[in-house]
């Protein structure tokens, strides 16, 4: 693998450090982004993702740590000298210029040939479906169109790194799926390296190769969408990633007669042969005590056998069914890709395979094991 393009080394951001209420917005952030990669910074508001983006772009001073882009330390450079392109959340289109002039602006300042510019603008306009509004002014087009124009302006500019701040929040729902696909294809074909900031995990999952999940200024996990789903590092990412969210169950561990039993609230047992667990995880569980179990809704299987549950709601959405059932003193959610016949009140059986079980330490929130293996083994 080639050397990373962007490296954040123990980056900190403290707002108002001498004031009465200093805010430590970003703590000791280490992040390495490879060339050609799409990385999402994901978190709820106030998690530090926007501060991080603004530090990379140069709109915010780095309180401590260093940022290196393509081998140059950039954290002390002025924004214009970092060779970074950015699409702003508020679009920041130049009002006196048409959409076409806005998009071409970044290219003109580099004195490219006219035909080349026109061709590039036409290409990206077709991709983002803004061809018919190229000659209008920003004030004459809708919020979604402004957002697409701003995206076009950022993506067309040659730069080492492209930063996109909430790039698709205002996009028309019917266009979103297409635009996501086209954008991802465009970024790949052009070999661009992109960092996008979003609070919407659907967007992060759809576009990113790797997602940096942030909370309280601390990086929780930096991994591919699939690994975030299958191997969450802690309860926070486990519960945060996934729509619908992961089911969490409190359990007491029992080991006897060659079996491992997770006794849920109300006594229902999740029972697995000890031989299916890795020896290391078995070793850890044999100490007994409490654990928090996690299972993704689409891994909760409805069918004959299994533990008894009672359907509370069964909602068919056209391509998926969401079933909520009362189970072990709480509510468990199952997602099926076909229609489920059981109506509210129906008694059903639920099975949860060991391979789909996530085990967390309830005290620290740290993940202990996934799918019958200790975290260290996966």
């Amino acid at each position, binding site marked *: 693998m080639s050397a990373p393009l962007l490296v954040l080394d123990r980056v900190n951001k403290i707002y108002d450090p001498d004031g009465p209420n200093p805010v430590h917005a970003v703590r000791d952030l280490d992040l390495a982004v490879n060339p050609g990669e799409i990385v999402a910074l994901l978190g709820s508001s106030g998690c530090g993702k926007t501060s991080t983006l603004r530090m990379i772009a140069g709109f915010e001073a780095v309180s401590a740590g260093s940022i290196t882009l393509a081998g140059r330390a950039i954290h002390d450079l002025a924004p214009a000298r970092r060779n970074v392109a950015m699409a702003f959340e508020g679009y920041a289109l130049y009002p006196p210029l048409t959409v076409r002039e806005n998009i071409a602006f970044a290219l003109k300042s580099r004195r490219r040939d006219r035909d080349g510019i026109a061709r590039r603008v036409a290409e990206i306009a077709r991709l983002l479906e803004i061809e018919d509004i190229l000659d209008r002014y920003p004030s004459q087009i809708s919020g979604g169109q402004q957002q697409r124009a701003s995206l076009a302006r950022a993506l067309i500019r040659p730069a080492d790194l492209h930063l996109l701040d909430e790039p698709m929040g205002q996009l028309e*729902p*019917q266009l*979103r*799926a*297409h635009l*996501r*696909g*086209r*954008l*991802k*294809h465009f970024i*790949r074909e052009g070999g661009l390296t992109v960092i996008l900031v979003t609070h*919407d995990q*659907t967007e992060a*999952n*759809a*576009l990113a190769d790797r997602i940096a999940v942030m909370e309280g200024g601390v990086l929780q996990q930096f991994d591919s*969408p699939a690994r975030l*789903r299958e191997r969450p590092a802690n309860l926070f990412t486990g519960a945060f990633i*996934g*729509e*619908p*969210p992961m089911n969490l169950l409190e359990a007491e561990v029992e080991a006897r007669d060659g079996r491992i039993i997770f006794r849920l609230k109300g006594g229902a047992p999740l029972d697995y042969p000890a031989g299916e667990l890795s020896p290391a995880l078995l070793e850890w569980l044999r100490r007994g005590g409490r654990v928090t179990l996690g299972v*993704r*809704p*689409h891994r909760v299987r409805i069918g004959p056998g299994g533990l008894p549950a009672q359907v*509370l*709601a069964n*909602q*068919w*959405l*056209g*391509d*998926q069914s*969401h079933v*909520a059932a009362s189970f072990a003193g709480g*509510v468990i*959610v199952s*997602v099926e*890709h076909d229609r489920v016949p059981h109506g*509210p009140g129906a008694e059903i059986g639920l099975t949860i395979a060991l391979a789909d079980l996530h085990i967390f330490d309830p005290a620290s929130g740290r993940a202990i094991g996934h799918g019958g293996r200790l975290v260290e083994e996966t």
Partner: protein
Amino acid sequence: MTTLRIENLTRRFSGQTVLRDVSLEVPSGSTLVLFGPSGAGKTVLLRLIAGALEPDAGRILIGGRDMAGVPPEERGVGMAFQNFALFPHMSAFDNIAAPLVARGVPGARVREAVEAVARLLKIDHVLAHPPRALSNGQKQRTALARALVAEPALLLLDDPLRNVDAKLRFEMRLELPRLLSGRGATVVHVTQDYREAMALGDRIAVLDEGRIMQEGSPADIYLRPATIGIAQLFGDPAVNLLDVVPAADEGVHVALSGRRLSLDPGYAHAAGRACVLGLRPEAIGFAPDPAAPDAVPVTVEAETPLNEKIVTLVVTAGGREILVSRPLGTPGPAMGPAAIRIDSARALLFDRATGRRIAPGRSAPAEAAA
């Protein structure tokens, strides 16, 4: 038991007709979802039912009683608002208690009823707080509690889940039917989220430009949408639309990238017409054998996971973009050349000129009900 009947309702605002001859019937104890884009007239219709506005023509009957000239406080409805509309100068308790206080319920019974509904909605610990001290989710639950507390026979929900985050919205969507069942209330629920409409409605009425475009069960709307527009509104990712002209020789088929896609023979009457083929992303799969006669060659351009599904953008040789979706965890193709296979039994056909769905003929008896 309360049935809501709406007859030929029309409402204009300064010369513009925002509701045009709307008729609906919501049987006692059932839920009707009013679905449509913003500006479709959903909110006006709800306000007409609540009595905040009077219609220019038509009648509203609640439990058989004509509501013309009846002020909102005498209609016996409960309502929850998109912006919650909590009384900012009263505590959550007083907010919820307002409908009971107005009915002259004695203090002890008010306390009992408010606490019961608050426990059900898990806000019993914040009853003393004013609205500004509540989180968004708690505000929403307080607004719902206020609408439910007096056990109204008709409940109007004006997009109550819109202003909360995705997680809360999902939780509440699963919880709402349980809160409503057992109360026997007739419910009119307004939303712009098709998932909410599918999940919560016994029936869905699709409103656009002040008219009812289609009314039916969630399955009717999703599987047999009346128009291209409705097909596009239901489903994420949206339905794929391809311009085709069906031909009828040896069965009915359309041409797709040089391959023949066979359609239901019932579509024979559409042969030769300019049509639009509607293919839901989940009705398309990847063909294991690209040489198979029903496989359409494509290029895979991007893969974008979406809510426990994987959505793939593919492009046909003719440059048409198609979205394909499959459940998470099932294998898919690599970037580059591949082939797709279309489940033609789930294909929709629309007339290109009118945008209306073409129902297949007699050979498909299951479709007759539509």
